[in-house]
């Protein structure tokens, strides 16, 4: 299977090309179009998980802000293709996973090949205050993983030390260590920068590995637009 990206960077879609019998797992509601022999099965777990195992996986995903059920599309009998699009405008990146682990901010996951196992991962209690995905998805195995951004995606080869606003993280390799920190704290906690700097919490990456960031922040955009709109009536 290979995943191709078109219409990048503003309105990217992912086109998954499957051999006969291959399948692709996708975020609920992401399917745009497909060959008519692609068959959808919706379940909480993966193949061979059993009822209880499936239930647990579904619950974990729900906690991660994903849907309880997962959509799996199979190319039955013949090769075929299927296209996926994220909800918001922006770009898509495809990462070929062979060894190691990729951590994906939960709302950035789009689709992945059969050989990829997805698991919810706790980002640490403090990331809650960062306003973004309290939980990240952990992808392991072999195959392609596609993830989307709000705005453009920039891949950064981190070596050493790097700081990212929590609202701009898309994904990163597990070889990077990270901890959530307050903004402007390089010389100890800085109360003023934390409360007034407008950045709140940032993620401090250490080690070496790849990191993908997005050039816009859904929360920032939402706040900007929200200020212009009339109040919601209950």
């Amino acid at each position, binding site marked *: 299977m290979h995943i191709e990206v078109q219409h990048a*960077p*503003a309105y990217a879609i992912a086109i998954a090309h499957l051999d006969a019998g291959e399948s692709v797992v996708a975020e609920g509601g992401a399917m745009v179009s497909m060959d008519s022999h692609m068959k959808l099965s919706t379940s909480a777990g993966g193949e061979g998980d059993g009822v209880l195992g499936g239930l647990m996986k579904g619950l974990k995903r729900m906690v991660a802000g994903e849907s309880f059920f997962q959509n799996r599309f199979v190319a039955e009998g013949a090769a075929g293709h299927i296209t996926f699009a994220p909800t918001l*405008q*922006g*770009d898509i990146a495809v990462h070929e996973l062979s060894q190691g682990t990729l951590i994906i901010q939960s709302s950035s996951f789009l689709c992945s090949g059969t050989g990829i196992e997805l698991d919810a991962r706790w980002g640490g209690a403090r990331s809650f205050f960062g306003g973004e995905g309290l939980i990240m998805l952990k992808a392991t195995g072999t195959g392609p993983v596609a993830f989307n951004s709000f*705005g*453009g995606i*920039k891949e*950064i080869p981190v070596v050493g*030390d*790097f*700081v*990212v*606003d929590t609202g*701009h993280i898309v994904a990163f390799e597990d070889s990077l260590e990270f901890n959530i920190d307050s*903004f*402007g704290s*390089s*010389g100890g906690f*800085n109360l*003023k*920068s934390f409360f*007034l*700097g*407008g*950045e709140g919490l940032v993620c*401090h990456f250490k080690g070496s590995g790849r990191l993908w*960031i997005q*050039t*816009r*922040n859904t929360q*920032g*955009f939402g*706040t*900007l*637009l929200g200020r*212009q*709109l*009339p109040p919601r*009536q209950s």
Partner: protein
Amino acid sequence: MKIDIESRPSYGMAVVTMNDGDSLVAESGAMVAMSSELDVRTGFNGTGKGGFLGWLQAAVTALLRRVLAGESMFVNTFSASADGQQVMLAPEMVGDVEKVRLDKDRVITVQATSYLASGKQVVVDLVWGGFQMLFSGEGAFFLKCSGKGPLLINAYGAIEKVEVEGAYVVDTGHLVAFEGDLTWRLKKVGGWKSTLLSGEGLVMEFKGDGTLWLQTRNLKSLVSWLIPQLPK
């Protein structure tokens, strides 16, 4: 200081690579990512002369900017302590980012919400656009940027650069920035009937020779399109 703009034009982001001693001031909330060794200081979006009175002057200026121009009350100053340290900056709104270089002969006036960041030597003053701007439907204040160094501006949509020779007319909601040599006045497009019915409202007429930056979309129009779409 080297500034590259990526993800253009839909979601422009400035990637700033600094040399030892370089300093950049950015609107609060604009930082996307940075080298962890960069020094960050948060301060009022205004300057004072030192001492308590100076502090008070800076605080009042910052508050006025927040209330009058919709700017951020605080700004962050990023300072490099070695060559090659980076900071990436992006606005909240979708659209492009443009860099402009200022020197003593080049002053640029920016529509307040289009300001993203500027070099340490750039002086940013809040200027009153005149009573007429109160009727423009946009903010009545501008930011006058002078001094020496880079200036980063952002827009909703793409940024169109126009070289004005003589006179040129711009919708108030599409203005991003203009060079100091240009003068302007607010006027109607056509007669009163057109002003009320054409959907163009008031426009700014620029006179002189200089560069003008426009945005290809208008936030007010987006909002007035969006509101009727929302559920009751």
